[in-house]
Every structure is written in C-alpha cells, then in structure tokens.
C-alpha cells in the first residue's frame, strides 16, 4: 500500500470535481455517488491532477501545516485508498 504514495495517480475519467469555497465536491459520474474533500483533501486532489507524486504532496502539506510527515503520509495513504476504491483515481 505504501507504494501508492510513490506512484503517479490521476483523476479517473468517471470523476468530476467542483471547488466549493476551500473544499471540493467530487461526483462519480456513473454511480452518482458524491464525496466532500476538506482543504487538505483538496490539496492532494489538485496535486494528483497536476501530475505530482502523492509523496511529494504529503511532504508539502506536512511542511505547510507543520505536521509530522509520517502522520500526513498515513492520512494521505488512507485517502488515496479511499479514492481508488471508489474509482475516483486511476494510475497514470
């Protein structure tokens, strides 16, 4: 699972995203299921869209929010697994 952080991911073709304030609402276009991303989730989502490695995004977030890297990586990993499980991201 940790490899997810060092792999490139991109938004799935089935995912639509909309920025709402500082947050993001994701909609799976086929299932109609929707998800809310908080500000940190939004950062990771944008990083994936920009082609950034999740590990690099996690490092940036840890620095910006002054949080331990290990904890941010753990949260980011769970977040990525959730996105992948719901077919919202796919490997590049």
């Amino acid at each position: 699972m940790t490899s997810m952080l060092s792999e490139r991911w991109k938004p799935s073709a089935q995912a639509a995203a909309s920025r709402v304030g500082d947050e993001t609402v994701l909609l799976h276009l086929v299932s109609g299921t929707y998800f809310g991303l908080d500000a940190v989730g939004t950062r990771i989502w944008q990083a994936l869209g920009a082609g950034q490695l999740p590990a690099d995004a996690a490092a940036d977030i840890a620095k910006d929010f002054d949080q331990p890297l290990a904890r941010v990586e753990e949260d980011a990993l769970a977040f990525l697994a959730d996105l992948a499980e719901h077919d919202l991201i796919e490997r590049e």
Partner: protein
Amino acid sequence: MRPISTGRRRPIWSDGQGLFISALGEQLFEVEFSGIGTFRIDCARKLIHCSDAVDFGGSDTFHHLVFDQLVPRIRAHEGAFVLHAAAVLRSEAAFLLVGVSGQGKSTLAAALDRSGAELLGDDAAVLALAEGAVTARSIYRSLRLLPDSLQAVVGPERPSQPMAHYSAKRRLVEDARPARGAVPLAAIFVLAPAGEAGEGVSFEPLQAPEACMNLLRETFALDPSDTARAATRLQQASAVAERVPAFRLHYPRDYARLAEVAAAVLDKVDMLR
C-alpha cells in the same frame, strides 16, 4: 396511440421502486412506471407519448406522472437545474425546503402558505443563475398532502382530489393566484430527518460543500447515466451552494406546533434579506 418510433431499447436507470428509464435513441427515452403505464419521450421533438395499453387509473394519476415525474426530468434534460424541493415566496424572494420524500416538505410549505408566505410549489423547483444571482421557480403551483396533513394544515374546506390512484395523497385544486415567474432565491432549508428533530426550531448553517451535496442528492435527471449532464449538475449545485445561504432545519413534527415553526422560518428568511 402510435409510438413515436421504435428502436433499440437500452435500460439505463431504475429507482428501485418501480420506475424504469430506458434509452431508445440519443434523444428518445422510455419511462416505465411499473404496473401503471409507460411513456415515450422524444426530447428533440418535445413530444410525450403514453402507451394506450395500460390503465392509468384516471386523469389524476396521468396528471401526477406527467407533471410531477416527467416534466421535471425533461426540463433537467434540457439543461435546467431542477431540484426536488418545495418553493415558497416571501417578500418577492423565494426560499426552498429540500428533503427526501416523506420528511414534511409539503406540510411545512402548506403551513407557510397560511402564515403570510406564498406557496410556489411543493415538489420541483427550477433554479437558474443569471448575472451572479440565483433565481427559482416551480414547475407549477403543486400541493399534495396526505389526509392527516390536509386535515390539520389546510382544513376540509379547500377542494382536493386524489393525487394518483395508487397513493393516499391528495392534490389540492389549484387556486386562483396567478402563476409566478422566476424570483431571486434567498435561502435553502434542508429538512433534518424527523428522527433528528429536537424540541425546538433550530437552523444549523451548512457550509457550501455540504449544501452542494444535499442539492446534488435531490436533483432530477431523465438520464442519470449521462455523464456530461451529471458533471453539469455538479457545477450547477456548486454555483447555487456558493451563492445562497443554506441551513439544516430541525423542527418538531407536531401539527400543533406547525404555525410556530412556520413563523420561525419566516423570521429567519426576513433576517436574511
């Protein structure tokens, strides 16, 4: 009646409760209400044909299926943002009551109508964004209530007729008030489930993302499998949620306190103006 055309039938969606939608072509759909009737909708030619081989149980059911079920979906397919919501007018601006079926939208809307506001419709609201502002209008001035709500809120003096032969709800005969066009949308109230109701009336502010997701849940679509239109609905819901204040409304489901609830809602709306 002659069908519009025949074509390859591709099932695309079911609500799990007897409503089945199939595509017969790019702009041609079949909507089946299981055991009741089937319609074919030609969006390109703006035609609705109903099957002649079914018993609609009378004109009430036909009216309900066309105006409450089909027209909102067709309007949505044409690009409108259509919400399953009651709309009420107060001081030349509308507010919406949003919630899943059975949460009390129509009953509260009827109570508001008797408390100094004006019911625009209890089921489907069409929202539009123009020059940065959101407007709302109802498909028609509908009001459908179960007999106990009808008795408690409206009284027996208003004429009503069955909504549909398979439902206990009754549809109030339209009143003489002129139809309203689009008016500015001032607020959205998402009805908290009855099980979460407290003793009093409270308004919990919803952040825009949460409001957006509540709106998405209540949108109409003729072809839910159409991903381009689904993406458009997401953008429409986001735009509305960012511009219109939204609240989760908690209130007791008690007919004896409906006037109090309606007064609290109207006070809230007045404060927002």
